[in-house]
């Protein structure tokens, strides 16, 4: 149906479209556990105010959301719900996994009722470490995600593959930040931070 996945778009146009997606991430108001409070702080606290970056925490329904932050423990009982809500979001959609619990079970790695990582249920675009991650850490994850969306290849994305960023170096050969740099995150986000 869509033409975009068949036709190569001119550079400025695809830049604009990527810009729209990257800079208007309506994020779903949905928290799971302790991390949700730090997420709430990132979204709701004037000190962090994620709206500056174009991440707008308005929608309460997945239908209007572009981004979901899985913030907290994913239990086996919750996993199908997460799966469904993720499915109910319209494409293109992005997922940030926030905190150790969502990354791979965290403190409850040996529990009988906790899913060991949300990536067993839905694909994840960015993992934010921490327990809980500071709100700034979530912001860093969001900046990283925005960078990646800005460089995304729409054709690939529309066909359903997760984010493909052609220019970024394979992660295994990543360059550690030079000593003294305050940002030790990946080169991509460091670039954005100085931009």
């Amino acid at each position: 149906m869509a033409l975009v996945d068949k036709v190569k778009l001119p550079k400025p146009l695809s830049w604009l479209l990527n810009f729209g997606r990257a800079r208007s991430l309506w994020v779903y108001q949905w928290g799971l556990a302790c991390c949700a409070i730090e997420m709430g702080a990132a979204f709701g606290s004037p000190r962090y105010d994620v709206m500056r970056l174009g991440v707008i925490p308005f929608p309460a329904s997945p239908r209007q959301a572009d981004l979901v932050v899985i913030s907290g423990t994913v239990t086996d009982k919750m996993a199908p719900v997460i799966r469904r809500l993720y499915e109910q979001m319209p494409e293109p959609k992005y997922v940030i996994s926030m905190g150790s619990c969502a990354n791979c079970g965290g403190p409850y790695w040996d529990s009988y009722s906790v899913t060991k990582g949300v990536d067993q249920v839905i694909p994840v675009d960015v993992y934010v470490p921490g327990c809980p991650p500071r709100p700034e850490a979530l912001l860093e994850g969001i900046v990283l995600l925005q960078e990646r969306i800005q460089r995304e290849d729409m054709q690939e994305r529309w066909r359903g593959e997760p984010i493909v960023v052609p220019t970024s170096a394979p992660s295994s050969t990543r360059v550690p930040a030079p000593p003294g740099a305050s940002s030790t995150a990946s080169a991509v986000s460091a670039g954005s931070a100085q931009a």
Partner: protein
Amino acid sequence: MTGALGLAYWAETSIKLGVALIVIPTAALMLGYLFLLKMMAFMQSRLGPQDVGPYGTLQLIADAVKFLQKEDIHPAAADRRVFRAAPVVVLASSFLLFVVLPTGPDAVVENLDTGIFYAMAVSSLSVLGVLMAGWASANKYALLGGLRAAGQLIAYELPLILAVMGVVIQADSLNLQEIVRAQAEGEIFGFGLIGNPFILTQFIGFLIFMISAQAELTQTPFDMPVAETELVGGFHVEYTGFRFLLFFMAEVATAFAFSALATVMFLGGWWIPGFDFDAPVLNVLGPVVMLVKILVVAFIIFWIRFTYPRLREDQLQKFAWKVLIPLSLANIVVTGIFKVVL
């Protein structure tokens, strides 16, 4: 008929249409950006959008671009045709409102004789769109939200209409230009320098109008139908992408239009004290004056929205039927008495 610009009908209409097509989305964007994003942020000691464009001005543009790329979902159980038509109905209702808004002696799309009556009629169309959306989504939250919204819209439509009546009695006309003229040429207690903005004599009417407008726009404290914490957004729960965008745009554009109506009817409209009523220069200055007044009124609407909690459904119905409607009827009678006696 040749219009003010002395052009043929078609040329003139095309120009007006063009202007309107630019003005309406711009108005929506401006209100959205200024109040919905920035003003709210400042009231909460935040900054609001800041990174997208200078001071975040491009935020809503980015939103629009994004919404255009979103997948379009019709829930399987939904009634597709009605589902699709609903936002268009709502948008058309708010578009049609703009037809009669005067911004200068000649700067008006069409100066309909039934002016305000027409405005009330088209604004009531949005109820239909809301009910359609709520029903067609095949979703409980949406249906509940749609019904509540419809119930609220009709309840507050009445005081809205009745509050206007006082102005109509004072101005002796339904025509919005005539209403502006009546304010410009009127005088209060012999003091005619600033004319007679009807807010002075119709303060009760103005209050009722503003309260009802707030409710018609489903803004807090009357936003129970779209309450996020209960109904996850009400009738537009299931809407995605640009269809949601249409609802959103219509909402903000209607807010703009209602502020404009309030300005025209109660705040003296585009007229500037000291000018001739028909001075052509007002065609240029008028819109500016209007814009300033509209922004003031819209500011109040959004200010209240960001400050207040919302009323419960039964409370706001009670308020409409037991307070506002009797009050506005009384206002009509009192205004009538003054009109006849004085």
